[in-house]
């Protein structure tokens, strides 16, 4: 019994310490004077690795999810003779929920895990220590460009996801199942509000970008410098980020859409 209480206490202390370390690292990584000489180049390089390399998986998943959404929506709506509302059903589902959340989950698996593994490996091979010894702050040089690249690319990727998913829905709904193209688009335009739907979805994906990139860089930087440690850190990034995205989505949805 005493041992269990002690273990619980130790777990509590470790967790609190971890949250403290992660918060300090976030603060240190996100703020501070930008390095004007190499900062923009490093940021663009990371934007390419984190954002552009995630485009294919985001686009392919987007098309497929849009197609499935149209198919499922059509089978329900057609029973009530409301298949013309397919455009509004698909667009609201994507812009408010599926776009930001699914793009974020794909981003965690594609870019978050890669960020953690890369930083962890740099730590294990003494590259971060070498940087410190050269008098360069690895938080500024390695973590900050990755953190900002994640924050910037996440909402852009979510918008790409939304666009191709709507295109997938048009292919299935309009060109295959025969929903009237005019009603599809006009219903969508009539219902979707920029601030309520597009902007709220964008805010969600920015928040997801912050949380995912934060967790990914922290886990990499704090990883045990062994192969087992890096593997554990990568797993933690995927698990913690996915749970954080889903939990945050609920709270953000409650705040944005629930109190009307």
């Amino acid at each position, binding site marked *: 019994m005493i041992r269990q209480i002690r273990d619980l206490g130790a777990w509590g202390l470790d967790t609190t310490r971890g949250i403290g370390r992660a918060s300090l690292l976030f603060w240190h990584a996100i703020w501070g004077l930008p390095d004007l000489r190499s900062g923009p180049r490093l940021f663009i390089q990371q934007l390419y690795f984190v954002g552009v390399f995630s485009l294919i998986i985001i686009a392919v998943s987007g098309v497929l999810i849009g197609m499935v959404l149209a198919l499922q929506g059509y089978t329900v709506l057609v029973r009530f003779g409301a298949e013309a509302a397919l455009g509004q059903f698909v667009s609201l589902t994507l812009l408010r929920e599926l776009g930001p959340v699914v793009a974020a989950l794909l981003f965690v698996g594609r870019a978050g895990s890669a960020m953690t593994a890369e930083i962890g490996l740099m730590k294990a091979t003494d*590259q971060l220590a070498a940087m410190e*010894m050269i*008098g360069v702050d690895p938080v500024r040089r390695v973590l900050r460009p990755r953190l900002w690249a994640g924050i910037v690319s996440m909402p852009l990727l979510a918008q790409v996801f939304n666009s191709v998913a709507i295109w997938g829905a048009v292919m299935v709904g309009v060109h295959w199942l025969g929903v009237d193209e005019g009603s599809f688009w006009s219903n969508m335009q009539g219902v979707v509000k920029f601030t309520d739907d597009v902007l709220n979805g964008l805010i969600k994906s920015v928040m997801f970008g912050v949380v995912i990139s934060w967790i990914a860089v922290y886990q990499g930087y704090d990883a045990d410098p062994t192969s087992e440690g890096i593997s554990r850190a990568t797993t933690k990034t995927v698990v913690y980020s996915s749970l954080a995205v889903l939990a945050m989505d609920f709270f953000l949805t409650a705040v944005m859409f629930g109190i009307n």
Partner: protein
Amino acid sequence: MPASTNWIEIRNLTFRRSPTRWIFKDVNMNIERNKVTAIMGPSGCGKTTLLKLISGQLQPETGSIRVDGLEVNQLDRQGLLALRRRMGMLFQSGALFTDLSVYENVAFPLRVHTRLPEEVIRDLVLMKLQAVGLRGARDLMPSELSGGMARRVALARTIILDPELIMYDEPFAGQDPILAGVLRDLIQRINQGIGATSIIVSHDVAETASIADYIFVLADGRIIGQGPPDEVMNSRDPMVRQFLQGLPDGPVPFHFPSSPWPADLRRERRG
């Protein structure tokens, strides 16, 4: 006031990895300017830890570490980074940046700390690569280098800013005799060439003793022997002799602490 002949002064240093595992207990050490000082001792005695303490990568439990008159533990982050710019460290693994070519690895410190024109950077990088015999490998990536080549490139990167202190972490470990000899000559030439203070952490007795001006032998969290190489090599201390002569058992035990061997066997039979 004349500058002290000691570049590094360590006083009453204690450090532990865990509440029960002491690495250093009340260690005192002076490292002289422009000399090659060797830190030797069996594996796990804290040689690399000592380098990390000197460079401020680790904080001691108690005691003081002064580098060129600066108290390392009391420096803020900027002060520490500024001090490290005057130091170079050759890591055991080389620690080359895997996303940069050999040329860019060596140029890295120049690019971040100076505003030299590209032609000057090129000349300096090629000069250092020539010194380590790898001018022809400038366009290779770290993944294309052998272990010995990677360490020589890392050495070129370490000396590119002509540091006042160079720390070598096991420079001879895992090297064939030719490469070990090459590295030994390079270290000696670099120390004389740029007038640096060098610390070599190693358990390679022959190679290290041949270039060191002063040797510290560490074991059990304390200094068990120190002096010029001749003096240390002729030490009568049983622990120092065991280490230098490579005897498998002695004051430094071969076996990890455990219950008596017969008792362990009997327990197994009963179980």
